[in-house]
């Protein structure tokens, strides 16, 4: 179980969140600039909170009072960036294997399974620029999962994709979570995506957790009207 209780002062407001997530999908939902990505970065260790604690089971990733800060490389937390951050100077295969320290038989089996599940076997030797948005998303997911993370963080993983690909990948992400049985924390500003993906949904506004307000319903209605 991941427990997050952090405070971080941002230029426009103060981020103050407290939540837990077990082996399920937690969606952080909120408008752009409300502190969702900062929360993910704090969990991954890429940004240091001002205070609070981040723990996973008995393991402490961050504790402000005890001055503990575990570096990202030692947290074993997978992170899928908004535009995937696949290394442009490496091919697909090298990207996927980057996080693997030792190619054991077990890891090789895991690779075969992932590649089959995500249907990316034929892309192994391709350069990153030769991939479509959906393929990049799958490769990034494979890269994050093959390192066998304890938690997977996904920063608006579907925002850059067209509608059909998005729907297809939503179910794939849910399937991967069911197989890997680790907590997934997904960030989005899309209410529909949050509803379809999340086992839990955390509404965030200006750095604070808020109850699902009428405003969000209005947002959805507005989007439907626009669509």
């Amino acid at each position, binding site marked *: 179980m991941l427990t997050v209780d952090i405070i971080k002062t941002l230029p426009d407001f103060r981020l103050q969140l407290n939540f837990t997530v077990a082996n399920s999908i937690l969606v952080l939902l909120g408008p752009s600039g409300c502190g969702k990505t900062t929360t993910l970065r704090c969990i*991954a260790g890429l940004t240091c909170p001002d205070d609070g604690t981040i723990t996973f089971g008995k393991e402490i990733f961050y504790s402000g009072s005890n001055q503990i800060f575990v570096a*990202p490389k030692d*947290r074993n937390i997978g*992170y899928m960036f908004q535009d995937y951050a696949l*290394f*442009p*100077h490496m091919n697909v295969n090298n990207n996927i294997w980057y996080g693997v320290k030792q190619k054991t038989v077990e890891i090789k089996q895991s690779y075969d399974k992932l590649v089959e599940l995500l249907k990316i076997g034929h892309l192994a030797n391709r350069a990153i620029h030769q991939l479509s948005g959906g393929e990049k998303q799958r490769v990034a997911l494979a890269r994050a999962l093959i390192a066998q993370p304890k938690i997977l963080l996904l920063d608006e993983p579907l925002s850059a994709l067209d509608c059909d690909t998005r729907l297809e990948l939503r179910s794939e992400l849910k399937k991967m979570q069911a197989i890997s049985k680790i907590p997934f924390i997904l960030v989005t500003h899309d209410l529909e995506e949050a509803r379809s993906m999340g086992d839990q949904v955390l509404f965030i506004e200006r750095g604070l957790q808020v109850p699902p307000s009428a405003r969000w319903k209005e947002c959805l209605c507005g989007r439907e009207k626009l669509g």
Partner: protein
Amino acid sequence: MIEWQPIILSVKVALMSLIFVAILGIACAYAMRRWEFGAKALFEALFTLPLVLPPVVTGFLLLLLIGKRGPLGWIFSEYFHTKIIFTPYAAILAGTVVAFPLMYQSTKAAFQGVDCQFEDAARTLGASEWRVFWTVTMPLAWPGLVAGLVLSFARALGEFGATIMVAGNIPGKTQTLPLAIYFAAESNDLGTAGLYVVIISVITFTAVYWLNVWTKNRVKVSVYRGMF
């Protein structure tokens, strides 16, 4: 009959300077990008100083440093029973100092051009800072680094003011190509001076031309790859 020694010495000095410039330039640019500290603006100004100071002034400051009574000169004399001043090592030092800002500025710009997300992605995949640097930062910053290396080589090769101050003009020992040109012209040996001018011009022109062609080809490949 021209002397080949100044040409060989100049190339040797420029190449040796390049090694130091590369190490120092990359290390300083990386440190300035990675860490925040109070005196950063001061260091930034110091690192750029040899670019804007007249080379003779740089040479004079180096003279104070490595001269007999200078702190570095004294250490070498006292502990290693040797001297740097008026040796090829002084020419290397002068070349390194004057070429350093070019390498530093090019490398800094190249590092700033690397999207931090790639480095962050590597960190979340368990890579140490050392591995992030060698497998992500350096390959992505490589074109800027190459530009810095070529410009630094050309600058070190053509160094005159600081070199004459600290290495002097000892034919066969510390006389580099620019010094040979100056003294040949001064003694009215315009034929030799002209020949040296052609040689140094050809070397530097080739280096810069190669850099332009290489960069152009690389941009073409990058555009094709969709990196820009």
